[in-house]
């Protein structure tokens, strides 16, 4: 399998503070990788480096140039990253508009995406009239409209209730499969990280290092009933060994 992105001893230092300390891992094409780490461990810095918003102080990031411009990003704080003065539809089209894409092509892409995602609400509504789940659906569609090679989701369900979170996990797995995406999912919820990932990368608290990379033995596209099985409980116990108690 080809690596889409490889981080080799990536460091990020702000003044005297070391945020990322020799972080190394590979994101292989078509895989669903979850990054698990405590709050404030430098995941946002890592994402900024991957997306080109920030640059590393040391180390190498292989493959970054080939994916830049092809990264779809779903944010944790979706309400604060969507534009409330625009409709859901305009929010989805924004990344294409920024690229100066022809309007007819934008609409064609949107129609294709709507046919695949089948949202059950009116996309012409303003963002502030939508529920949390609907707004996050807009955030997801905004990430997918660019037809990304890499989809990054930064704790996208942290504001949703458990029932909705379960439903959205299923949706993300379906999307990753149907769109044939390489996915990087950031989470601080161990159950979520283990349930979704083909691989879970455990990060330490700051200065951030990779503590362990765990391969998940379950086949892709899982059902919530998996969460109640002894095999999942055993995996969770193994994962707990990598959790630092605050």
């Amino acid at each position, binding site marked *: 399998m080809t690596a889409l992105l490889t981080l080799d001893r990536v460091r990020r230092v702000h003044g005297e503070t070391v945020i990322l300390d020799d972080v190394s891992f590979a994101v292989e094409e078509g895989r669903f990788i979850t990054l698990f780490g405590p709050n404030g461990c430098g995941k946002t810095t890592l994402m900024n480096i991957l997306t080109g918003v920030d640059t590393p102080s040391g180390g190498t990031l292989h493959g970054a140039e080939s994916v830049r*411009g092809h990264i779809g990003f779903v944010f944790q704080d979706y309400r604060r990253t969507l*534009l409330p003065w625009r409709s859901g539809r305009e929010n989805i089209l*924004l990344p294409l508009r920024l690229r100066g894409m022809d309007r007819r092509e934008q609409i064609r892409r949107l129609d294709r995406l709507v046919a695949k995602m089948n949202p059950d609400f009116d996309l012409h509504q303003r963002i502030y009239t939508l529920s949390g789940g609907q707004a996050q659906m807009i955030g997801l569609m905004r990430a997918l409209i660019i037809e990304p090679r890499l989809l990054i989701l930064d704790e996208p369900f942290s504001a949703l209730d458990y029932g909705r979170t379960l439903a959205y996990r299923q949706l993300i797995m379906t999307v990753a499969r149907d769109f044939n995406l390489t996915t990087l999912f950031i989470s601080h919820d161990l159950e979520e990280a283990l349930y979704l990932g083909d691989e879970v990368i455990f990060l330490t608290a700051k200065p951030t290092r990779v503590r362990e990379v765990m391969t998940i033995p379950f086949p892709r596209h899982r059902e919530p009933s998996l969460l109640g099985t002894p095999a999942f409980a055993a995996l969770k116990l193994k994962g707990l060994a990598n959790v630092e108690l605050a």
Partner: protein
Amino acid sequence: MSPSNKPNPWERYRFVVGFGVLLAFWIIVVDIGQWVSPLLVPPLGSVLERLGQLVLSGELAQNTLATLGRWVQGFTLGVVAGTLAGLVLGVFPRVYAFAEGVIEFFRAMPVTAIFPLFLLMFGIGDESKIAMAFLPTFLLMLINASYGVLHASPERRRAMRIFGATRWQIFRHVVFFEALPQIFIGLRLALSLSLVVAVVAEMFIGTDTGLGQRIYDSYLTNSVTTLYALLLVLGGLGYALNKISMAIEHRVVDWAGKA
């Protein structure tokens, strides 16, 4: 709909009821009770009769238009220049840090105290009065527009950078809209203050038209009924302008506070 969400039928008549009570109080105290000297507060009936005369003679329209003409010029110039300067300063926080002291210096200065200086600079004609309406508008718009830009959501800026937006695109799609609610706050503050200042400027020197000039003239000639009639018009004008600006604000930034 829960009982607390039911629209109160009195809501839309609040202004009429409040104003009706004030006028009733005026009639009881002045017209009926005669507890206040008519030299200080004339009967409401005679004030309304005088108002009617001012309307029919065309004098009211002429003076209102003269005041509005000066105010609109100063206010519009102030809004455009102040908003543009505020947006630019907000985009360059280091420049704003240098300019902040100067802005605060002028903001702390009573505008009316600058009028003699404006008379020297622009003469006794309309220009000095337009400048008087311009200055507070400019300062309020500048302060509020720059504040709006400086406090634009860092999360949306980051999201736009991740989407590969240029600095201009971030400004056009995010920062400008983020600043709009604050710009409208400045607009409403500037609207009342600049109208007050424009009327006060007319009272000083250099004009024989305008509501301010007519109010001062009424005082000099002891025409109390005219004075009260013009004050009623001025109050109504300020109220109407404020309502119009609020209606525009609700339409343009209906999303404010809901994001």
